[in-house]
């Protein structure tokens, strides 16, 4: 099957040169093994992520979103978009967002000099693994209702509570955590932003098994956990502002256009391999039109991403309309997983979770590409729930854009 062209971005000669440079770098530094794992959804382990992130660091490309003075690349928004797309299409593991994309901008904007000097270089070098202590069993969409409490005792906060849905807490040595430090005023006004050392007494990480059989998320129980005052970012009771700042940041990348393009290519490859009615599934008109529908949605999504990026170039940060990117982005991602599960027909049924782990080398059941597809379909239902559910995103747009 010849490589199909999803309508290419119209790039300037400099941008084309940049694209080629990124493409070559990714091709040189991503092994076939890692590419396959990223594309098929087989489990990447800590070393897979770290080795790639270290290579990016050595190239100076680990933090495209950071200001240059902190180690950022100084790229234009279009270059950042090209970089994301080439990494995704080359099968590079996504850079773990918690350190580079989430806590770092908050430390840069609101942290002490000591925090900047200590944490930021370590984040660049992937020396720390971060996780995000936000959600609680009683505080999902209503995050401001959180109840994990931090009480000042001398030079330390004593923290008690439970965080849930904490991705990768089993690997993390640090957690950025929203805690309640005051009951006065509105609920948002009593929240602080703490950096918690995960490797200390009182911190218990308990895996949560999700419907696809994986344990990528966790409960984190905090019992009398000591957090030194120096580990508070910014002012006490201003944590909600910092959290909102973080959510608004890098909104365009949550659309994951590059990744969806790569998954769409994968779908077409699989549909070409599936025998169907004496031909291949890709030649079935109904299936082709379903692919067309998603591809068109993806083009529309990318177009809005580019519009918002170009406004960023002019110095305007992404406004609340960027919530559309999250909604549509996750709908496109989920739509592709639906077509993938349809594409493999009967081989959606066998469930061999071990086959997605490192070191499994038995014969696949059915085609090699089949094993991860149904689990991935079920796993990806999270996308419309996390990061601010799509319902919350619509509320944001309704209020902040349409004035309801």
């Amino acid at each position, binding site marked *: 099957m010849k490589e199909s062209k999803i309508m290419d971005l119209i790039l300037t000669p400099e941008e084309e040169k940049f694209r080629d440079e990124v493409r070559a770098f990714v091709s040189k530094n991503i092994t076939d093994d890692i590419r396959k794992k990223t594309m098929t959804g087989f489990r990447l382990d800590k070393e897979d992520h770290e080795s790639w992130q270290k290579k990016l660091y050595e190239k100076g490309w680990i933090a495209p979103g950071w200001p240059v003075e902190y180690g950022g690349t100084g790229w234009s928004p279009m270059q950042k978009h090209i970089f994301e797309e080439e990494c995704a299409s080359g099968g590079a593991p996504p850079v773990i967002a918690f350190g580079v994309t989430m806590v770092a901008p908050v430390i840069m904007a609101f942290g002490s000099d000591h925090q900047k000097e200590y944490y930021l270089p370590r984040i660049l070098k992937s020396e720390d693994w971060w996780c995000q202590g936000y959600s609680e069993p009683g505080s999902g969409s*209503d995050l401001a209702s959180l109840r994990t409490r931090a009480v000042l005792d001398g030079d330390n906060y004593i923290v008690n509570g439970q965080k849930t849905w904490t991705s990768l807490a089993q690997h993390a040595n640090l957690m950025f955590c929203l805690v309640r430090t005051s009951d006065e005023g509105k609920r948002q006004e009593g929240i602080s932003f703490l950096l918690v050392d995960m490797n200390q007494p009182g911190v218990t990480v308990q895996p949560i098994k999700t*419907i696809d059989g994986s344990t990528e998320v966790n409960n984190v129980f905090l019992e009398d956990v000591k957090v030194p005052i120096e580990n508070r970012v910014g002012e006490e009771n201003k944590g909600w502002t910092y959290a909102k700042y973080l959510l608004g940041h890098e909104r365009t990348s949550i659309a994951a256009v590059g990744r969806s393009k790569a998954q769409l290519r994968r779908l077409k490859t699989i549909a070409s391999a599936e025998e169907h009615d004496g031909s291949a599934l890709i030649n079935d008109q109904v299936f082709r039109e379903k692919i067309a529908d998603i591809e068109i949605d993806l083009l529309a999504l990318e177009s809005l991403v580019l519009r918002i990026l170009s406004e960023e170039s002019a110095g305007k940060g992404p406004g609340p309309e960027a919530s559309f990117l999250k909604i549509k982005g996750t709908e496109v991602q989920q739509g592709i997983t639906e077509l993938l599960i349809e594409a493999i027909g009967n081989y*959606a049924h066998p469930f061999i979770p071990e086959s997605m782990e490192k070191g499994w080398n038995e014969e696949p*059941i059915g085609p090699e590409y089949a094993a991860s597809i149904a689990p991935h379909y079920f796993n990806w*239902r999270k996308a419309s*729930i*996390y990061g601010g559910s799509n319902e919350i995103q619509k509320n944001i747009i309704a209020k902040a854009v349409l004035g309801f």
Partner: protein
Amino acid sequence: MSFTFTEDQKLLSDSADRFVLDEYDFETRRKILNQDGGFDKKNWSKFAELGWLALPIAEEYGGLGGSTVDTAVLLEALGRGLVVEPYQSSIVLGAELLQITGKEEQKKQYLPSVAEGKTLLSFAHIEPTSRFNLSHIKTKASKEGDCYVVNGEKAIVYNAETADFFIVSARTEGDVSDQAGITLFVIPSNSEGIKLRSYPTIDGLRASELTLNAVKVDQKDILGPLHQAMPAIQQVVDRACVLLCAEAAGAMDTAVKLTVDYIKNREQFGQAIGSFQVLQHRAVEMLGAKDFSRALTYRAAGAMDQSNSSERARAVSAAKVEMGRSGKLIGQEGIQLHGGMGMTDDMPIGHFFKRLTMIDAIFGNVDFHRKRFAQII
């Protein structure tokens, strides 16, 4: 055509509902999944005692002579609890193939024992490259004296590892996708040359890839007419589709109830999230999807015992399309309305979502049946 249960059907439904409520809660089911063979043999004996295995089997073979609608009633109730015992394999597929296409001696040999819960059957028909095309058969059976020698690969054979007999389709003539030239064989599961690779399915059942390597079958174990098995296979699979839709109707019912219950109780922003009109409307859509799918399923079940083959095909495909669409909506929305909790393995909703998704993905998905229906509009 009747759309309300008869007295007997009501009794059957209540009895099966009681079983699920009293003996098949979520935790119990979880333990059962992990047992050898993936189901509880005590439950199977109980089903036999209750006459459920005998239900669709003709009276002269130890059965109760129940209709497809009767069986749908039972399966809907079992679907409410996501019961994993191999009813679809042994009774809906295996026993029905014997019933409609077996010789007298074969029916007498197997059916009473199946009805008593003493014999388990699995239908080995799907193949690695067949997708949903029922006549795509590469497994070959060649005549050698009084025997046939069977070679080939079968895929997604439900409950193969616990079956006493496989009913295997093989090509005795013709090309890969020809409708003619397919023959059914009854093969003991411990026959030499049979190899199983067994696995759990993502929705909690058990299946296997089956390799047949020069498996010798006596010609007396041919089931039905030589070369002409396709009509029986089509008929049985069509009926199985409707009964799968019935099981799905039960699963949808529970999924809707779980979701409504969840959003009525889950509080955020100082109130139950079920108080938000947007979520109420979405819960209503879920309920409607269940109601329409269920009604069409029972209509199709009624058509199974009456119609000619093209009316039957329309009824089956309509029901399977409706079920596939409704199941997807209910499953996906069920998870979404549960929020993060819906993603956890601990909550039942995800298990209902997975079963509904997999019922769509067996014996033809929405696209397959939509196309089939479109050919007969």
